[in-house]
């Protein structure tokens, strides 16, 4: 089930909980499909752009239903685009000059009430909005490395206000909703960190997964104080994405995208199996309904395609 949109890679994917609407952030813009990827609408059509607008990330408000609640954000060069009507129209929020390149967006699970959304950039650190994306400010206190590749937000964010940022030289953690950052003690030589995944029970179990560029996958069971390597001999190369089962650790499933190969573990990372029926050239993945057998897996490709797979046993 796919339709080639153009020859530009898919940077990020997002869907509604019921998977009736998909979003694909691509080198040429932001696209939406409401027919399981059969057709895609260009969401920037209303902007009447002279040139394609590369979009590196997309996040939906947790209450997104596409009708009454249809807030979404797209990370683009120089700023963040905000829509309150599912992408029909947009407000541009320019981040501070000089225009930064947005590498990732993260939204609070309690966004409806706290209005917190964050934008990571490749040269300027992290910008934060606490009024549903209306106003953005740079919050880099303690963030000693401003080249940020990824962010992961605690499932208990409304209580613990914790989030992690993977940077060129390691990992930083904030415990006040992204207003200040402190370095996490990652072993030397394991940076840069390209992806971070948190256990759904993170506030209690403190389990953090970190995907590195050249040293595979790391896990910490104490909020990032100590680290151990996972998947040695299997998960190698640049770990670009980590998906953790929503029932983890009760159901200890993990799915990792290393280089462009998918690796699946059903035992918390002790043993790994390569997902053989996955297509070539994967750039991003999304598992909106978890990692159980036969769960749907959205796969974005370097070619620009989006493919729907079913996870096997």
């Amino acid at each position, binding site marked *: 089930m796919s339709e080639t949109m153009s020859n530009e890679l898919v940077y990020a994917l997002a869907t509604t909980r019921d998977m009736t609407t998909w979003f694909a952030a691509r080198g040429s813009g932001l696209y939406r499909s409401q027919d399981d990827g059969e057709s895609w609408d260009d969401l920037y059509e209303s902007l009447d752009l002279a040139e394609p607008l590369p979009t590196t990330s997309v996040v939906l408000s947790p209450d997104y239903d596409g009708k009454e609640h249809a807030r979404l954000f797209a990370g683009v060069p120089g700023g963040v685009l905000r829509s309150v009507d599912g992408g029909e129209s947009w407000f541009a929020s320019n981040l501070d*000059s*000089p225009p*930064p390149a947005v590498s990732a967006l993260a939204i609070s699970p309690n966004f409806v009430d706290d209005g917190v959304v964050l934008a990571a950039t490749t*040269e*300027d*650190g992290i910008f934060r909005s606490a009024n549903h994306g209306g106003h953005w*400010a*740079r919050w*880099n*206190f*303690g*963030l*000693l*490395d*401003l*080249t940020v590749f990824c962010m992961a937000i605690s499932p208990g964010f409304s209580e613990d206000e914790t989030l992690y940022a993977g*940077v*060129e*030289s390691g990992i930083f953690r904030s*415990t*006040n909703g992204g*207003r*200040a950052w*402190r*370095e996490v003690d990652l072993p030397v030589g394991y940076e840069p960190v390209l992806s971070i995944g948190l256990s759904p029970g993170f506030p209690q179990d403190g389990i953090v997964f970190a995907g590195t560029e050249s040293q595979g996958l790391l896990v910490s069971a104490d909020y990032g104080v100590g680290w151990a390597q996972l998947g040695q001999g299997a998960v190698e190369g640049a770990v670009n994405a980590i998906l953790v089962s929503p029932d983890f650790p009760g159901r200890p499933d993990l799915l990792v995208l290393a280089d462009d190969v998918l690796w699946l573990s059903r035992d918390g990372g002790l043993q790994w199996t390569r997902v053989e029926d996955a297509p070539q050239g994967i750039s991003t993945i999304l598992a909106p309904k978890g990692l159980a057998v036969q769960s749907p897996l959205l796969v974005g490709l370097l070619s620009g395609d989006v493919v729907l797979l079913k996870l096997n046993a």
Partner: protein
Amino acid sequence: MTKRSSRQKWQRPGVVFQPEVHLKMLEGIDQIVGAVRPTLGPFPRVVLYDRTMGDAGRVPEFLDDGGTIARRVIQIRGRDADVGAMLARNLLWSVREEVGDGTATAAVLFRSVYAEGLRYLTAGGNAMRLRHYLELGMREILTELDGMAGKVAGERQLRALATALSNHAELGRLLGEVFDVIGEYGRLEIRKGRTRAYEREYVEGMYWRGGLVSRIFITDIERQRAELQNAAILMTDLDIEDPRDLVPALSACVQAGLENVAVIARKISDAVIGMLMLNREKGKVKLNVVAMKTPGNTSTDQRAALTDMAVLVGGRALLRDAGDRLRDVRATDLGRARRVWADTLNMGIVAGQGDPRQLRQHIARLRHAYGTVTDKGDRAQLQERIGKLMGGSATLYVGGITETELDYAKEQTQRVADAMRGAMREGVLPGGGAALLACRPKLARRMAEAEEPEERAACRILMGALEAPVRALLENAGYEPGEALSEVEAAGPGYGFDVVRGEITEMASAGLQDVTTVVKTAVRHAIGGAAMALTTDVIIHRASPPDAVTT
């Protein structure tokens, strides 16, 4: 006539022996401690300092900080007693200087140990042996306090601590938030506000004193500043007198395709400024150069600022002491930042593009140095340098209407801020004197095992002294100390009397905490000072009183 004879008496040299020495010193100590004691606890009484001296225009000063109160006493009647008073004054001011708080606790501890020690000596005890055991006991107390210390982290805990330290809910809320953001070394500037309200603001990036070398570089007329984006930065403490000296650096920028250059130098001549402006307006190669002064007043400060800057933005600072010359500059010597700004007073850097690993190592070195240096000025400077490198700073505007009110609020805020930094480094203890009370069982065990009378006496004296702060706190709040103390003792370690609510409570969980460094410093100075004072046998008076007394 009376005045004259009193003056003559002060100027007479003399040697005073026991028992006058101890008794008169206690008299002086009592006066200082009596002035400071009412300020202990959340219901402090204020001390009015009469500084009018016949001048109706000068209003009296309201004081509730033990250190300042002690410092305002520059002389008391009777020069033997004055020696005791000045000893206590100096001790309390040292505590205030070191940690910003804890002077009232130190005062009552000091007085208790000295007075009880004196009683023991009067009964025939050996002063030197007593001192030895008092110092041993002090070390035991310090170890016990270390064991009780808990970390303070997160906005909620910091807010509770700041509120407890300041007895000011709004100030506590803001300081809790500010320190959660800037961290223990973060840069916090405290300024007088323009309204009654307390406010705070955050400044992104780092900034230094040392603005534009000339207003001619201002490009943003409204904000009176110049700003460069994606700038190369030349950093030096050299003087740039000859326009030709800059040519290699500017050529390197042109070759590297850089359009914006910040030149930071100790001094830049008018000829160089003229050349830069001419180039900006009429040059074939468009190079936007802004010239700024090297931050720092002394060459040492300048070197430190340039070293920090170079780590932050990459590149290399050209230093006079290293024999560097501007004509040898290469492109790799230039730093880079996403944004550089300067106004007539300050210059700042946002998102410097130095190596983050080197930045971490540099901060670690500065932190290590902070832990080893003892000079207060050096420590303050190191703290400021670390704070600058951490990515931003905060400004807190204190509220008030009158100048006196603003002065007081600013001083109080600074004091609480200093204590907060201490708490973030060394942790916190159960407040309201509960931590000191919890040290008593250890001393009681030691007393039971002691073989020498001086050791038993020292333990007994210290156990009594550890009660003194709680007693003072209860009395200041209007409670009868004996009854409350026995209830606290029955409740167990960590429990204390919450004088605001009037009930026994677990102090830490109720947010009633003291800063470990503050309590330890008070203990160290008070017991150490009293132990030393107890060994004093003779006072020698000089012929003339010290200058401070005559002014």
